[in-house]
């Protein structure tokens, strides 16, 4: 109880206390201000020109779609090597050249953002977890299973490369490529609205539209060859 001590000089003690009170109040305001500063991002700091963060939709889409595309290119190139049907070879060229160009764009952006050009975490499509995406989201691949929806397994690729040629090859290729297109669509669909960068939204929207058209075409091609899509 040191209370009485302050009252020895009447009139003056309030100065000390007031200084303390004011000092503490100033400190409190500063601390609160600093805390708010730490927690709140200025609207300008997330503008579309700033590099998107690791784990963002933009980075995740570019990394995972690049990987998805690379397999599409791989399969298309196998068709360029193996198919003798001009219709199939033409479609395969269209797919491989378009997707390779798109991969180049995405990897260029990732390089500008100082991000890995591919997902090295072993968990794919985690960036789709954020909003209520119906049934999609992070996938952790198991042995013998595809890394992402629509992707072919090693065994399927081996069969494509070494299996029977001719019409049988064309049909199997169409089936795998059709499934590949359909499997990748939800990623593009998600990024087309959820990506922060307009270039990413534009590209993913474009993929969605062009691949939907190709999907229809491949269904026609399959029907023409008396075959059905994979279940």
């Amino acid at each position, binding site marked *: 109880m040191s209370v009485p001590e302050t009252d020895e000089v009447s009139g003056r*003690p309030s100065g000390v206390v007031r200084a303390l009170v004011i000092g503490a109040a100033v400190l409190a305001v500063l601390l609160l201000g600093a805390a708010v500063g730490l927690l709140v991002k200025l609207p300008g700091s997330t503008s579309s020109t700033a590099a998107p963060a690791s784990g963002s939709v933009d980075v995740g889409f570019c990394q995972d779609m690049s990987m998805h595309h690379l397999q599409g290119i791989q399969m298309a190139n196998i068709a360029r090597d193996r198919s003798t049907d001009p219709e199939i070879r033409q479609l395969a060229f269209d797919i491989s050249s378009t997707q390779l160009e798109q991969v180049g764009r995405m990897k260029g952006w990732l390089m500008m953002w100082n991000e890995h050009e591919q997902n090295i975490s072993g968990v794919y499509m985690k960036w789709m977890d954020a909003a209520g995406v119906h049934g999609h989201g992070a996938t952790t691949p198991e042995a013998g299973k595809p890394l992402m929806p629509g992707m072919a397994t090693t065994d399927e690729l081996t069969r494509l490369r070494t299996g029977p040629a001719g019409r049988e090859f064309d049909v199997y290729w169409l089936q795998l490529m059709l499934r590949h297109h359909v499997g990748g669509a939800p990623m593009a669909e998600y990024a087309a609205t959820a990506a922060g960068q307009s270039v990413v939204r534009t590209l993913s929207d474009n993929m969605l539209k062009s691949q939907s058209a190709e999907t229809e075409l491949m269904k026609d091609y399959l029907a023409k060859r008396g075959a059905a899509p994979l279940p």
Partner: protein
Amino acid sequence: MTSGKKTKATRNSVAAARSSVVASKPKPWGTILAVIAVLALAGGVFGYAYMQIHENNVKEAALAKWKPSDTNKDPSTALAGIVTKEYKGSRHVEPTQRVAYDQTPAFGGPHDAQWADCTGVVYDKAVRTENMVHGLEHGAVWIAYNPDQVKDDALTKLKAKVEGIPYMMLSPYPGLDKPISLQSWGHQLKIENADDERVDQFISSLLRNPNTYPEVGASCENTAFLSNPAPFVAEKPGADAVPMDGGKDDSVTEGQPQNPSTPPASGSASTPPSS
């Protein structure tokens, strides 16, 4: 509070009354408590925000440590045990030729015109080094293992890091001096077991790191090679092997059909990565 003497009770009481009146002004307890409360709250909020952000920064820093960037072009140099060598993108050799590599397994130098397919390929049989090195030149990471020492669970773990993952390849390497050896162009790390955290760190640092491999953007696809991989050659390269500098004069090293009976012949006989 004060033990007043009865004789001066009146004076004391007056003084007490006055002092209490005077004291009540400089000691606004309510204000003091309020300020302390606000201070504590502010300190708490600040502390919480700081801790959150600090924790986040630490996490990001741990990840960023192995991520190539403008300011950290080759994170692998921080890996314990990493061996690095400066190799230029180099000349190609014929399927029948050997290269006198300076490292085992090699991770740079002259190589076969055919790159080993590195589209996330698990090679079950050992592959000719001259082709694997070309895969490295395209930005791949090659995990080599000693087939006598790495099996079952350990091998399954390594396969999971490779199968279907672009720019990765895995192959046995007979006679490897450590159970596992990781290669990327100009980089090597030998480790004892598949659980070593440096496997992921090596991959994170070097897989298609545009600062560390010569042919940025090159493809890993080589269907012809994948259908018929060139087999590993166990014998040491002979005197006619292409030296690491590619040979001073190409015409000299190229023009060696006069001695096809030296060791490369055994490799060449079973090494037709045609087309």
